[in-house]
């Protein structure tokens, strides 16, 4: 996966709270292989029920601005695949589901946390249109709707996004330590090995 430091693109607002991963990708699409592309599955049923949905009117979207608890619920990483394959590279919200945030960073999608008041101002400023937006990971700032805002981002996650790093590569250098840990753990706590 390739990393990124800055994106300059278009942003829209989705003025809803609690957009869960079941809405982001309904379960029935999750048996598809990733190589088919997941972009069409993004908010599939919601978009099909509402021809005027913001993501039907604008399909060239890089940044999504939305309300609290985005990506809550099911751990399905397919929700992130749908966003990424649609073309979205950053989501700005007051809060995210914990598992979703990790999944996002593992796939090059920035979950940028901003104060609720900033998000409400942005949603009001963007309305039903799309606007230009620039996201800069090196400074943790976003320029959007005439404002420059700072977001919270875990420094490790910044590194992963910028470098497109994969944890499996990072962990291989700890292989000896892991093997030693396993041996010590089961020697001290033999009951922790499954019997039968």
């Amino acid at each position, binding site marked *: 996966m390739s990393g990124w430091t800055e994106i300059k693109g278009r942003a829209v607002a989705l003025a*809803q*709270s609690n957009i869960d991963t*079941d809405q982001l990708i309904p379960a029935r699409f999750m*048996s598809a292989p990733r190589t088919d592309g997941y972009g069409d599955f993004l908010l599939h049923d*919601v978009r099909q029920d509402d021809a005027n949905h913001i993501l039907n009117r604008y399909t060239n979207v890089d940044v999504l601005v939305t309300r609290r608890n985005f990506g809550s619920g*099911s751990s*399905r990483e397919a929700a992130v695949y749908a966003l990424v394959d649609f073309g979205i590279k950053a989501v700005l919200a007051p809060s995210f589901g*914990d598992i979703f945030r990790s999944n996002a960073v593992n*796939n090059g999608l920035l979950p940028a946390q901003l104060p609720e008041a900033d998000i409400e101002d942005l949603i009001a400023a963007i309305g039903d249109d799309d606007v230009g937006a620039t996201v800069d990971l090196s400074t943790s700032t976003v320029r959007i709707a005439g404002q420059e805002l700072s977001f919270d981002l875990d420094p490790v996650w910044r590194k992963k996004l910028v470098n497109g790093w994969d944890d499996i590569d990072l962990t291989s250098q700890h292989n000896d330590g892991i093997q030693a840990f396993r041996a010590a753990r089961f020697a001290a706590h033999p009951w*922790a090995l499954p019997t039968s």
Partner: protein
Amino acid sequence: MSGPQTLFSKLWTSHEVTRRDDGTSLLWVDRHLVHEGSHHAFAKLQSRGMSVAAPDLTFGVVDHYAPTRSGEVASDIRRMIDTLGRNARAQGIRLFDLRDPGQGIVHVIGPEQGLTLPGLLINCGDSHTSTHGAFGALAFGVGATEVAHILATQTIWQRRPNTMRMTINGALGPAVTAKDLALHWISILGADGARGHAIEYAGPAIRAMSMEARLTLCNLSIEGGARLGLIAPDQQTFDYIKGRNFAPKGTDWERALQDWSALATDEGAAFDQEVTIDANDVAPTVTWGTSPEDALPITGRVPDPAIMSGAKGQHARASLDYMGLEPGMALDAISIDQVFIGSCTNGRIEDLRMAASVLKGRKAKVPGLVSPGSAAVKKQAEAEGLAQVFTQAGLEWAQSGCSMCVGMNGDRVKSGDRCASSTNRNFKGRQGRGARTHLMSPAMVAAAAVSGHLADVRPLLEGRT
């Protein structure tokens, strides 16, 4: 480290292989549970030419796509099940497949098989992995990339969450269950109220709970946004585990009991947050909206978005629109089209017993499906005569699996239909496109079934339990 420790801190420290300067820990994984949905992770592993690092600690089960009724199985469902079987065989992983007497929902069979033990770190690519915390295990759900990482290394990188102690004082009333307690606290703190936190449930109401009730409570931690839920093990926990298939035996058992006796929060240990709930305040609770936080006592009324502020009001308006409800309606006046009993939240034997005690000698006014949480639960329910109670009431008795909780196997609620459900998520479209879900305890589902509308179970159980 010195000073008094929380249970969470003890578990975390005992699994830390290493810690980076930035504070992220590499944690050892004692049990990794996989299911059909793990196909993305196996594909990732294959694309790197890697194999599973610890097949002896990895267990597979068919649950998310498991067919629960007879008849032809759709080809994409068959493919998902076959793919898991192929991956498990290729990697030497013990698989509980459809015909295995140990098959069931992953979070039901973990404890049932003795795979879930106090002091272990347990991961699964499923958010309800928090369930296993009921045994004093560090258990949390992960995404596909993390599943691939665990398969490849038997470890996971995690940032340490904050801690929250939720003390439940008092006692739950008759017919008020762990499900009601969970919906109650989530309605107070919000669906993201425990975000970034590991919750330890404590207090007299927790000690009084059965293991199965504790599993229900820990299961729903994720619906309040928590990373995981935990309960310190006690004699009841040990009694539950003893003699189970994969549980420690002989001298290992004695050693385990010694280790497990230290698994409690020390007197004076500090939590980042303390929350106190009075169990006596909890009534049979139902959801009215499209988030688990949209929950109220059955004696209440549908809220009025007009008197709620800003984003909250907008969420409520959109929820009521989707749910087809009017503000101010009495909750027990909401008529239903069908019921579902099952899931990793409420598909265990005690859940079925309680639902059956409501249904016995009564007829359901709406159709419904009962899917036991595992093949073992099914067998036991049949031996106890519970299955007969369900079928005599007019409900369908099916095989075990995730079934209508997630709808992946084709068990779905029709668009616009309203379902009283013992499951964990009332999200838009969760039980099927356009489906309207009301979450509640299995006893409350049974009450709704015999009433044809949402109903308070308490009068229906008078003189019965």
